[in-house]
Every structure is written in structure tokens, then in C-alpha cells.
């Protein structure tokens, strides 16, 4: 069991962004990817989800052995992949509750519906954990939310959908320290030996709260260095410039 990314190449017309990326995330592990702006972190997360802007030119992504690159966006999600977006989109007129119900219902056999009482009980419990006001259930998805509220809402969805593998794309950006603590607590509550995490961040700060097992450095579409927690501290101190490609890590 793992989320295995093998020699992944992806491009937008005329420009390759991911240039042979390798990564294996096992259930129970928390991996962090750090890297300078523009190195391809968000691209990686969106390619994994199947965003149509990007063309995968070679490589494989195996989710517990199954190649998901041929699967539609929604099927990948139902297969157990989750992305907390760096910039969550607003969906006018669709309430948070209805949206989550639709997402949960999509995971049930055809014709079955979710138990509304159980749903709200769980939703409220999760919202309490994230210190989100109940009014967020009836508000339109992300519409008029502050940056921090949007990020909390992403984690709320993560908590409700309980994926096998969760990718968090710069969940810390736009959060003040209190919100960061709350969101991290939510994420940590979801850590389990059955779930793998890929935490993408530009700053080391988040990793004080969500402690990674393994830290990777992404530069120019490739993982150029892999290490333990201490690597993130070193990156914080020295920046990214000193990191140069280690052929071994890239080939791992």
C-alpha cells in the first residue's frame, strides 16, 4: 500500500514543469515537500488530482497499486486521494453542507443516500474541532470566506471525506498563528496509520505543528534532496539556493 509517483513528467503547452518526479508515500507517513516559488509544488498536487491544464507526458502514479492517471478527476477522489487547495475556489449558491453531502453521497452505492442526522452530528463535531461557526454549514462554499476560513474549510472537507492520501498545498499560507494551530490540530487528529500525508509548504513554520517524517526539496520540477525533519530547519536557515541535485535522491 502506498501512493507511488514514478518518473512523473507533466507539462503545459510548450513548457515542462514536472521533470521526472519520484516519491513514495506509505500510509501512516507524513511527507513534506518544500521548495521555492514556482518549483512545481502546486502543479504536482493538481497533476495528481487530474487537472486538465496539465498533460502528463510520462510516468505513473499508483494509488495502492492502481494507476490513477487514466482515471477522471472525481474517480481519483473517490479512490482515496484528497487535495487541500492552495487557492480554494468559491462556489456561489452551493451551501457547504450540500456540497459535503454530495461529496459523501458520491461515495455510496448508487441509489443510497447518507443519513442526515449522522451527517450533521459528524459535521458539527468536526467544525467544533476546527473552531468553525455553525453558520458555515449554510454559507456558500468559500464565498466571502477570509483566506484563513477557506483553509479551515479545506481541512473540514478532509476530515469529512477521510481520504487514504491527503495532499495539503500551502495550507499554512494566509493563516495567523492561532488559526495555524487550530488547522494543524485538525490535521494531526486525522493522522493515522491508515493515512498518508503530503504536506506542501514554502515555510518551515507549519512543520513545527505538523511534524513530518520525511522532508523533500522540490526544485525545478524534481526532488533534489530528501531528509528528515532537520532538513526543514536547515532550509529555513539557509534558503534553497545551496541545495543541488543529488542524483541518488532523484533516482530513489
Amino acid at each position, binding site marked *: 500500500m502506498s501512493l507511488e509517483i514514478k518518473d512523473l513528467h507533466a507539462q503545459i503547452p510548450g513548457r515542462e514543469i514536472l521533470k521526472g518526479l519520484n516519491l513514495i508515500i506509505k500510509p501512516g507517513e507524513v511527507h513534506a515537500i518544500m521548495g521555492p516559488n514556482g518549483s512545481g509544488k502546486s502543479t504536482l498536487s493538481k497533476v495528481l*488530482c487530474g*487537472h*486538465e491544464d496539465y498533460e502528463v507526458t510520462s510516468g505513473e502514479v499508483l494509488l495502492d497499486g492502481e494507476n490513477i492517471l487514466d482515471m*477522471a*478527476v*472525481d*474517480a481519483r*477522489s*473517490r479512490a482515496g486521494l484528497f*487535495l487541500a*487547495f492552495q487557492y*480554494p*475556489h*468559491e*462556489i*456561489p*449558491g*452551493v451551501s457547504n453542507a*450540500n*456540497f459535503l453531502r*454530495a*461529496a459523501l453521497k*458520491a*461515495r455510496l452505492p448508487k441509489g443510497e443516500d447518507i443519513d442526515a442526522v449522522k451527517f450533521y452530528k459528524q459535521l458539527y463535531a468536526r467544525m467544533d474541532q476546527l473552531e468553525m461557526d455553525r453558520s458555515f454549514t449554510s454559507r*456558500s*462554499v468559500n464565498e466571502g470566506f477570509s483566506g484563513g476560513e477557506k483553509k479551515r474549510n479545506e481541512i473540514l*472537507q478532509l476530515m469529512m*471525506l477521510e481520504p487514504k492520501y491527503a495532499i495539503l498545498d500551502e495550507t499554512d499560507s494566509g493563516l495567523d498563528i492561532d488559526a495555524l494551530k487550530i488547522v494543524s490540530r485538525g490535521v494531526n487528529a486525522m493522522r493515522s496509520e491508515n493515512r498518508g500525508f503530503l504536506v506542501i509548504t514554502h515555510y518551515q513554520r507549519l512543520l513545527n505543528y505538523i511534524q513530518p517524517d520525511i522532508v523533500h526539496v522540490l526544485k525545478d520540477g524534481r526532488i533534489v534532496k530528501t531528509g528528515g525533519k532537520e532538513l526543514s530547519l536547515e532550509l529555513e536557515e539557509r534558503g534553497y539556493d545551496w541545495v543541488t541535485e543529488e542524483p541518488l535522491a532523484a533516482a530513489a
Partner: protein
Amino acid sequence: MPTASSETSTGLLSTTPARSTSTPDWFRIRSEAAWTEFQSLPLPGLNDEHWRYSNAKKIELADHAQAKTPTAEQSKAALAATEGLKERAARFVFVNDTLIESDTNSLPADVVCVSFEEALKSHEAVLQQHFMKGEQALGSNKFAALHLAHVKAGTVIIVPKNVVIEKPIEVFHWVVGDHAAIFPHTLVVTGDHAQVSVVDHYRSLEGEGGLSIAIADLVGGSGSQITYAACQELADDAQALHLSSITAGRDASVKSFQVQLGAAFSRSESVSDLVGQGARSDMLSVSLPIGDQIVDQRTLQRHKAPRATSDLLYKNALYGKSRTVFSGLIIVDEGAHYTDAYQTCRNLLNSNEAEANSLPGLEINADQVKCSHGSTSGPIADEELFYLKARGIPDTESRRLIVEGFLADVIERFGNSEVLDTLVARIDEKLLKAE
């Protein structure tokens, strides 16, 4: 008495409408004059500004004839198909302009709520005062004349001063048989601080084609509140014309909702006259054209008194090769200072072949006026769709959620009621069909 069938004549174009012998003289005279007027007026041409992007020939007068009195089976079938509200103040069911059921038991005693035919006998004075008084400002004088020449069905609702009717009055107009035409009429008059809510349903039972030329006039007295919905669900090959006028008196508030779901061609002309200081008119509409359906919407917000508000929000979700035309005009008369007038039409294009036309207009002759108008058209945003799908929601379901979300603010503005629940259920049903 029923008229000649379409096989032996040129239908509505030239068949003299028949009137029952019990019709009061004054009405017979108006009706006959209207028939003469209908025949003398030209059909609006392609360069008539009120028919831009549309075509009056889409209403096929020659192919339709006045609907025949329904058979017992047809009436029974229509009644069975009339699901209606559980909680209602009154209900009327018409089939081919013939009243087959009325239930007014839950109405306060002093409210007048009768069929049009009945009102002709019992409420002549009110009809003389309010019945089809104004010109049609938006291009359908000829069709209005035809309506007046044929009208015999519909409801007349008069709510006296201070009377509040909590539950809605529901009216069903069924059309049945090949090429049958109906002419439903609605007149609502409220006294000071009265309150009423009325829903007109236009439906087809069976038969080819079908035409409804309906008129609804709402007259709101001082401080009164009228909520009105017209839900048009005629058959796919039918044609519908709905001409409505709102006259809002001092501090009156009228909320109207056009729901266009059926018919090959449907046109609504909605005029709001704000005649009293502090009056308010909310003009709302939802349409979901699919296939080759055409929805043609003309609106006029006429501010004749100061400090009045009119707020229009029309939303169309288009599918297939469907087409919408929205033409809206705001006129603020001299002296109508401190007017607030807003007009928004939004079109969501769910297909590359669908086409939405918008013609907004403003004419301001007063000071201290807040006016805005705007229209937008566009497809579902890719990122919106991606977001929903990335949560595991399949494509069609994601699109449906987005369309429902798109329509949500219109629906919310209409308010929360059982009427709304039924309308939303009808809209959702149509959405499933659209996929």
C-alpha cells in the same frame, strides 16, 4: 360555446370567438371591440424594437384554435395530475378554460376569490375598474386584444383592507387536445395593508402543440403585499405568452416570480408601475431552456413616484441549442426622486450552441436616483467544476450543483415557503431532464 376546429379554418386568426349568452353586455361590447382591434392590428414585425431577436410568428395563431370544452375523462386526468400544495387558502383547476374544480373553503369570509366567469356576474364594478386597463407597453397589443376577445377563464381575487391571507391561492390551467389555445386571466387587487400570495400554473395534459396567452394584472393598494408566481410548464411543442402588469401603490410591496420551464417558445412581458411613494417591486425569474427552446423576456420598471424601489433579477441556465432574449428597460419619470432601480440578467451557458441575448436599457428623468443594470453570460468556470470533481462529485452532479447554486439567489429572494419548495422541485426535475 366551442369554436371551429383548426382543420376547417385558419384558427385563431379568423375564427370569431364565441361568447356565452349570459355574458354581460358591457363585457361583450369590449370583447367584440377587442376582436375587431385584433384583426386590424398588424402582427409585430421583425423590426419592432419589442421583438428584437425574437419573432411574433413563433406564436402560431393560424395553427391553434380556441380549446374545446374538456371531456369528463380529460377533466379527470387533469385533476389527477394536479398535485398542488397541501397547505393552501384556495385552489382552482381549469382545463381548456373550463373550471373543473374550485376549493375556497379556507379563505377569510370577506375575500373575493372567484373564477373569471363568476366575477363577470358578481363583481362587475371591480372588473370595470381594473380589467385590462392599460396598454401593453412591451409589444403585445395584438395578442392582448386576442386575449380579451376570448377570455373566459382565470381568477379574480380581491382582498379587502387589512385582510391577510397566509396561505397561497393556487390556480392550475391545463391545456388538452391538439392545437388547443387557452386564455387564462388573473386579476389580483389588494386593499390597504392586505396580503395575498397567488400561484398560476400553466400545464399541458396531452395533445400536439398548445398555446396559452395569459394575462395577469396585480394591483397593490397602500402598504399591501402581493406575492405572485407564474410557473409555465407547457409541453415541449407548445407556445406561451404571459403578459403581466404590477401596479404598486404607496408602500406596497409586490414580489413576482416567472418560472419558465416548458414550451418551444415562451415569452413574458412584465411591467411594474411604481405609482405610490415607497412602493417596491421585486421581479424575479428563472428559466432552464433545453433543446431548441426559446425564452423571450421583456421587462419594464416604470417609476412614477418618489422613493420607490424596483429590483429585477432574471437568471437563465441554457442547455442544448436553446436561446434566451432578455430586454429590460427602467424608466424613471420626472419627479420620481430617490428612486432605487436595479436590473440584472445572468445567463449560464451549459452548451456552446446555446445563445443568450441581453438588451438592457435606462431612461432617467429625475434626481437622486440609484440605478444599475447589468447582464452577464458565460459558461461554468472550469475551476469551479474542477473543485467539485476533486471532491469526488461526478461531472453531471457537479454541473447540477453549480446550476442550482447559480439559481439559488433568485429562489432565496422569492422567500421561503411551500410555494417555493414546489417550484424548486419542478426546477430540479427540469434540470435532470436537461442532462
